[in-house]
């Protein structure tokens, strides 16, 4: 600790009127010599944080809207049910697996549809699917069998929207981010009630954001409404705008009004927040159309 006096004359308690004020250059010289102050960098010399690498989300319009998905950041897609969020998720997974990256899907509600994912082009060999709330760990099962009576698997107790699934998902996400090496880690909270999703502590989101910082991992979260708050570098809201269907004509003379198939719907995306570019909220929107898949039996 330096006791270097800045104003040596002050120690002598000279009257103010007769004190000789040191010149400003002398003051700056003396300030620069104070060890603690020399460790403080002036703002002009602070390192500029490099902008994150952007990767394709698999949707051209969305890439044009957001610039892609940023690596080392948390991206949140929010929207109501049937708004197109899961279609966006599958497109991102397909793009990441086609880039030969290992991906992880933390499925809080166990709602993942393999058929839709296969149609979207997801490479299952590179996708780790974690189904929260789908079953009980073996240790718990063994505890119950100790006395010869098993309660069995009661699906009502392990409702996918329950808090236990969310807790499992948070723990699993921690493990996946600590393990590292994944190009894309997705957390699907789409079917979790907003009251439950909102209860995820901000510290958890902050911890996830810090865990992916300076890594090549894209953390992608689907929520019913914005939950990650300032921890999300990119916040996109999606909503379904228009249904489209294809009519089937059974014969030349008859056509049933309900003999039609869902062919897809138009999704509109609105960029609510982007730390990567400063844009006013609500000013940037984009739209894309999805296509329904039917299994031809």
């Amino acid at each position, binding site marked *: 600790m330096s006791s270097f006096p800045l104003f040596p004359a002050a120690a002598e308690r000279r009257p103010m009127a007769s004190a000789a004020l040191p010149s400003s250059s002398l003051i700056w010289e003396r300030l620069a010599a104070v060890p603690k102050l020399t460790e403080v960098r002036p703002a002009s010399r602070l390192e500029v944080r490099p902008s994150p690498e952007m990767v394709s989300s698999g949707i051209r319009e969305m890439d044009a809207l957001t610039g892609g998905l940023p690596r080392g950041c948390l991206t949140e897609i929010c929207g109501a*049910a049937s708004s197109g969020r899961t279609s966006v*998720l599958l497109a991102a997974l397909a793009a990441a697996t086609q880039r030969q*990256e290992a991906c992880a899907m933390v499925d809080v509600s166990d709602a993942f549809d393999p058929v*839709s994912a296969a149609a979207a082009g997801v490479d299952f060999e590179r996708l780790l699917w974690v189904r929260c709330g789908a079953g009980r*760990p*073996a240790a718990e099962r*063994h505890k119950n069998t100790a006395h010869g009576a098993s309660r069995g698997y009661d699906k009502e107790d392990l409702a996918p929207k329950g808090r236990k699934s969310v807790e499992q998902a948070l723990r699993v996400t921690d*493990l996946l981010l600590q393990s*590292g090496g994944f190009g894309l880690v997705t957390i699907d909270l789409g079917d979790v009630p907003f009251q439950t999703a909102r209860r995820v502590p901000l510290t958890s989101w902050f911890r996830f954001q810090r865990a992916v910082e300076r890594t090549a991992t894209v953390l992608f979260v689907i929520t019913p409404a914005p939950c990650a708050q300032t921890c999300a570098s990119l916040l996109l809201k999606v909503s379904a705008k228009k249904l489209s*269907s294809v009519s089937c004509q059974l014969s030349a003379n008859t056509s049933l009004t309900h003999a039609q198939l869902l062919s897809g719907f138009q999704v509109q995306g609105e960029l609510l927040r982007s730390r990567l570019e400063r844009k006013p909220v609500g000013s940037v929107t984009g739209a894309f159309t999805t296509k329904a898949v039917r299994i031809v039996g």
Partner: protein
Amino acid sequence: MPFACIFVPDFPVEAWLRTEPELRSQALAVLEGKVPLQKVFAVNENARRAGVSSGMTKLQVEDCPGLVLRDRSCSLEAAAHAALLDCAQSFSPKIEDAGPGTILLDLAGLQSLFGPLPKIARDLAKRASALGLESNVAVAANPDTAVLAARGFSGVTVIAEGQEAEQLGSLPVEVLFAEKPGDEEWEQLLENLRRWGVRNFRELAALPDVALSERLGQSGVYLQKLAAGKISRTLAPVDPPLVFEETVELEYALVLLEPLAFLLSQMLQQLCARLGEWSLATQELRLELELQNGWQDDESIPDCVGTGALARPGRAQARQHFSRTLHLPVPLLDYKTFLKLLQLDLKAHPPGAPIRKIHLAAEPVRPRAAQGGLFLPPSPEPEKLELTLARIAGIVGENSVGSLALLDTHGREGFEMRRFAPGEPQEKPDAAGNSDDLVTALRIFRPPAAVTVTLREGKPEFISCAKRQEIRGEILWAAGPWRSSGDWWEQEGWARDEWDIAVQHEAGIGLYRLVRDLLNGRWLVEGTYD
């Protein structure tokens, strides 16, 4: 041609000290025989100083203060001997198994690789010590001289060619007979030599050979040549099978996982050290536990291994076996990773009874030679990934984590979970997003929600669901039906009509897949389009 001999004195004791190194500073005696006629079979130096010697009964020694007693374990000795063989083979391909705890090596041509003979001998001793065995190492121009020197002198001994008689001269004659203890003919020979006042090798070598052969026969001449270091022979090389196993028998049954983990850690360290000697790794670990029945599970003890029938007095405690096999995605050689994986596996699948014996085996394979590319996409490290998957399985269940594979069926839930093992990434250009390939994703309800549907002119008009309040109301739009069926040749055939419906709810319009099971007439909502 120089030969080296590694000799582990008090080998049964050293075999125990290899698994319990904390006993090295104490007096330790190994007992053999059936209860209650057990006798001391081997002792270490501390026990010898305390007055304990081989042949004493258990009753005579059990009151000796500070003396630790252990029963002789053939499995431990076999594991120790195998470790010694591995150590020897890491130096020379030509070795001879000269008995428990004794290995001969041919050092011809190795000086240019490992340095001068004294250095090779010191390195041998150091390598054996790293495997938990304190040994004597001797180097001589012929194998038998090397064996005698290793048995007689402690530490590292190097006998130059031509100096055998002089250097071995001070050894007591009992060293000559240590190879065949209990042999009557040799006991008689030793008795004769003692009666004649022959105490050491020098005195035996100095005896006239003709007179010696007349009194003791060819055995006496052979012993004299051994004492003089004049026997020359070739090694009988062995090519031991590559078996990497460790076994520990416990005096008291283990009830908790923590002490089991401690023992497993030591066994894994030994296995990895032995694999490392051969420049090998392992991709499969087999753990076999011998359990003891007749114990009651105590739920108050956390991480308890025991569950089983209530113990009954007088009931014979039968033993049963418990085995687990760990398959690793890539060859590994990190004992900490193996230990963690075993711990997680045992926590998920506890043995079910106290443990009396532990057997651990590793399947040797060549280590992987992976070279990461600078421009390849990121991929998880196999060691970390394996641990992470094991931890995740402990949280969500084994069958709830992995990659999936679609089955060749159009039925519901036509997929199976598999082990997640992403292949090595290869350089591929970044594929740009193509909106034409976007599909409408379906979110599956597991289990599907049972609903009540009102039809009008064959078309769903109103829907209500008891468990999902949002699926209730007038159906704004319906598309279908799309009929599918399958597996009619199996007992679990299915047939269904699918409808895509739009229902108004608070947040907007929800799109659902409505299914009618044609076999039982039930209406279900299978999922929502999102």
